[in-house]
């Protein structure tokens, strides 16, 4: 049993509900226990950073200090990329020097030694144990589903804070998708920002940020976008309709690209029904594609079975032919031998 301190973040019970539902579904199946940090508070996200550097450090530090006291020895998992970056940046600052830690302790008025690490859910899922557990629980592979894995900006950048070694082309989610049989496409917008806050403050200017992400996913043959962040998810999934309306008005084709959390797809592969992992409450219709691809996968499997059966038949025919030839050869050899024996006997008789 792997155990972590869990920082749900403000969207966990609201706009990110499907992420929470599917995460707990998958975590249960693979034996990962997530213990909620008692009395955690909002991480402050970029609003805190754009208000005051001290505030940006202090808000996450309060929750991390509670976790250190109440859940000692457990690393902290923050599924939301926005929370992750805030927590991780605060942690990095605390680990820089004793002076920084003293300053934090003064502000949060609590002991804090920055002992625990902060992880994304993808990092938890990166371990061999978790991968083996997932493989063992897969009941049906999501074959034929072409996915564009979208990591967004906050999980990978700044690279030194996020300890990310492949900022332009991260692979963790792609690998998980391969593990459950889906086909990750290679595309250019994996870590492009979707402008979650900008959609509120400068909506006209920020809309193209989302549109370009859909466009690039579509251009590279993706059926859907897979994400690991509730802010990205809400932004893409909820606003696809607005973007489509504008496209239609301009005489362009609308997109039909559902978005999923990677945990939802892993849940499906483990045998969950779409509603069980929260897919039923998405904005853009997300079930039809899954049904279509399940059908495609079945048809593909059927065709593969057919091909295999034909192959078997061919093999059997060949084997029969070989056996017949062998028998023919053996019979001829025996006949020749008996003539030889007869000739020898004749010679001996003479």
């Amino acid at each position, binding site marked *: 049993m792997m155990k972590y301190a869990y920082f749900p973040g403000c969207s966990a019970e609201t706009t990110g509900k499907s992420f929470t539902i599917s995460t707990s579904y998958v975590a249960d199946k693979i034996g990962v226990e997530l213990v909620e940090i008692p009395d955690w508070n909002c991480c402050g996200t970029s609003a805190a950073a754009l208000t005051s550097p001290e505030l940006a450090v202090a808000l996450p530090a309060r929750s991390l200090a509670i976790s250190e006291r109440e859940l000692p020895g457990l690393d902290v998992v923050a599924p939301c990329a926005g929370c992750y970056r805030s927590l991780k940046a605060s942690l990095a600052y605390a680990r820089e020097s004793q002076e920084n830690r003293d300053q934090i302790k003064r502000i*949060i008025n609590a002991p804090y030694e920055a002992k625990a690490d902060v992880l994304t859910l993808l990092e938890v899922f990166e371990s061999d144990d978790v991968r083996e557990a997932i493989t063992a629980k897969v009941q049906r592979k999501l074959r034929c589903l072409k996915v564009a894995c979208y990591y967004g900006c906050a999980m990978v950048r700044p690279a030194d804070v996020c300890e990310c070694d492949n900022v332009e082309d991260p692979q963790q989610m792609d690998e998980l998708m391969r593990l459950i049989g889906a086909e990750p496409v290679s595309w250019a917008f994996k870590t492009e920002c979707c402008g979650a806050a*900008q959609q509120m403050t400068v909506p006209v200017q920020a809309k193209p940020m989302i549109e370009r992400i859909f466009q690039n996913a579509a251009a590279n043959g993706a059926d859907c976008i897979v994400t690991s962040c509730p802010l990205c998810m809400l932004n893409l999934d909820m606003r696809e309709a607005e973007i489509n309306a504008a496209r239609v008005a301009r005489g362009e084709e609308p997109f039909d690209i559902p978005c999923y959390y990677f945990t939802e797809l892993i849940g499906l592969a483990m045998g969950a029904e779409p509603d069980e992992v929260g897919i039923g409450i998405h904005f853009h219709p997300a079930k039809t594609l899954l049904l279509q691809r399940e059908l495609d996968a079945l048809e593909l499997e059927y065709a593969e079975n057919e091909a295999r059966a034909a192959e078997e038949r061919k093999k059997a025919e060949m084997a029969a032919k070989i056996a017949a030839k062998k028998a023919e050869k053996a019979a001829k050899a025996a006949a020749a031998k008996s003539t030889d024996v007869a000739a020898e006997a004749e010679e001996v008789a003479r």
Partner: protein
Amino acid sequence: MRSLNLSAISDADRRACEAIAGEAGVNLKDCYQCGKCTAGCPLADSMDLMPREVIRYLQLGAIDIVLDAKTPWICAQCVVCSSRCPQNVDICSVMRAVRLASKHAGKRPVPEADIFDDEFIANVRAHGVSNEQYLAAFYNLKSGHLMQDMGNATRMLARGLVGPAIHNTKGRANVAAVIDRALEADAERRAKAAETRGGEA
């Protein structure tokens, strides 16, 4: 780039620009104006100064142009610029430092951005967590964009994603105290920095 009367730039202007760079942990001389930051910026189309130009004006000491620019207030803090800069200039942090300096100078070139962040922190100060539905409502009220995202609000309600219930953290008084102490420490640091700058002059 606008044409600039360099002799009109004072020592105080230059020091103010250096102070911003210092806050961001950046050496302005590192930037050789290649423009890679701008090339990758997802919002460059909508900015009045390109990210590269923000650095250039700071190099030149043109503090007023920088503090009045919309760019740092539009910036999404996505860190693409810093991550791709061949000179390791942390432009994203520069954007943040400019925006804070602009805010503390009483400017808000993109009022919506300022209102959004203030409302966000007020929401966290009151409840310990952020209640998205009330954040959106207050933001719309204060920014005057009353109908923005109203269609989406209805769609969220229909899916049970938001409701009228306010979520509160048990220790929300404690969270408010943390916010207040952090902002006090922030004000102290700024006062001290202003003093040193004044002393140098």
